[in-house]
């Protein structure tokens, strides 16, 4: 099992969700985060005082998938989230040791 973590631009969320549904990924965890890579922040001005805001709002999507599905999922997210401009985001793949479905007690790939 692997956890696929994707940091994407917020407006791309619906597109990525739809694309994942199309490849039979039904569940995910979504959080609102802030961060930056190479994308510069923006400037705000209040009564002449300038504030450079470096942290840019992003969306983080986490899905845990079976090993065989990882490549497919990564490609799906990358394609749906891409705009070609700086700030598109990154995808990380991490190993997962165990998964449990709380309602039934199932473990392993069957719990995904």
């Amino acid at each position, binding site marked *: 099992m692997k956890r696929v973590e994707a940091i994407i631009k917020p407006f791309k969320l619906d597109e990525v969700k739809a694309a994942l549904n199309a490849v039979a990924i039904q569940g995910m965890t979504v959080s609102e985060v802030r961060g930056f890579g190479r994308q510069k922040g923006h400037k*705000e*001005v*209040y*009564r*002449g*005082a300038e*504030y450079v*805001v470096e942290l840019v709002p992003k969306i983080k999507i986490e899905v845990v998938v079976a090993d065989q599905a990882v490549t497919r999922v990564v490609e799906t997210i990358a394609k749906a989230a891409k705009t070609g401009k700086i700030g598109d985001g990154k995808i990380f793949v991490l190993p997962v040791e165990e998964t449990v479905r709380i309602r039934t007690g199932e473990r392993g790939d069957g719990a995904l």
Partner: protein
Amino acid sequence: MKRIFMAVIILIALVGSASLIFAEEKSKTEVTAPGATEQAKSAPLAPAAPATPAPPKIDTGDTAWMLISAALVLLMTPGLALFYGGMVRSKNVLGTIMHSFIIIAIITVQWVLWGYSLAFGPDVGGIIGNLSWFALNGVGLDPNPDYGATIPHQAFMIYQAMFAIITPALITGAIAERMKFKTFLVFTLLWATLVYDPIAHWVWNVGGWIHNLGALDFAGGTVVHISSGISALAAAILVGKRKGYRVEPMAPHNLPMTITGAAILWFGWFGFNAGSAIAAGRLSTSAFVVTHIASAAAAISWPLVEWIYKGKPTTLGAASGAVAGLVAITPASGFVGAMPALLIGFGAGIFCYIAVVSKNRFAYDDSLDVVGVHGIGGTWGALATGLFASKAINDAGANGLFFGNSALLGIQALAVVVTWIYAFVVTFILLKILDWTMGLRVNEEEEESGLDLSQHSETGYNF
């Protein structure tokens, strides 16, 4: 320390109750005489009573307008709370709002006990009133010929109470996000008694020395805005800069709240300025109209200057401009015409913007720009009155420089300087004493966690 504090509170409560009971037993009638009023009158008098001189008749239109105006000015203080509240960081939103809100409560009590008497009561030497009107003794429902000959005396009193309330509330912008609540309460009571009441007396009491010099202040340019603006400077210097000032970001956390507050202030200001006619009719209409024009003009000029110098016009700039225009027109509102109001407002947006952005050259942290908007705006307004006042608008006033009288400008300048010096010095001394005895600031940890939690055990937002 705590026990002494409690003992003092109980003592005040006992003395207060005693005088209240005492005052109620005395008859509330006052000597009334058919005196001339200084304001333009609207309603005609009923046929006079035969032998004794007729008591001034209460005009229902004037009275209705004054009661509404009092309510309008009251609303300005919660409006100010929102205006300021949106500009601080979210961890301090309740603390900031609480400053204004609690002032409504404590200054109301101070005013009806001794504040009104000191400000408007029988004059002593042109400097201050005596305490014969303590606990509204002698302040009844018959008109006082000097203060609203066509409205109940208490209507005038309660209208003025709202001014006494909002003036110290203005200062709180300068000490936002770092003052100890206890000390703030004591400071407010003492400032009202030692700064506001005397200055109001000098400018608005019929025996006041600045009044008798001929200085014109229709609705409170010196009494309210300059006094609070300059006191705010003293306060900002003595309370010191916020931790992380100019290093950490301290952007406004809720500008929609701020704009809402500005809108409420604009609305209420019609009571502040037009109500200062103390009657409903020609003068109050004139004041209403010029107030609106000045605010609109400033709401154009501030964002315009921003657009030119910073690249974009901002909503905070539009709201701040509107407020600056209202401040500037305040002393002039009963004395100038529509086109001068346009110029006064337009100028206010520019001068106050410059004052606000220049703040960074000096070493003080006037967090919400009280000095720049109220101090400078009020000064501009007071001097502009010396330029544009016209007896054609209000023949109880005077002519300004552009209407053939160069003397007024000098008198206005004198009133301005006296107010600057007195308000600054007394506030400075007051805060120094309070710093030695009670401490002005919260400690570092309290400042870091925010006033809402540290002073009030509350959080503003629990999403």
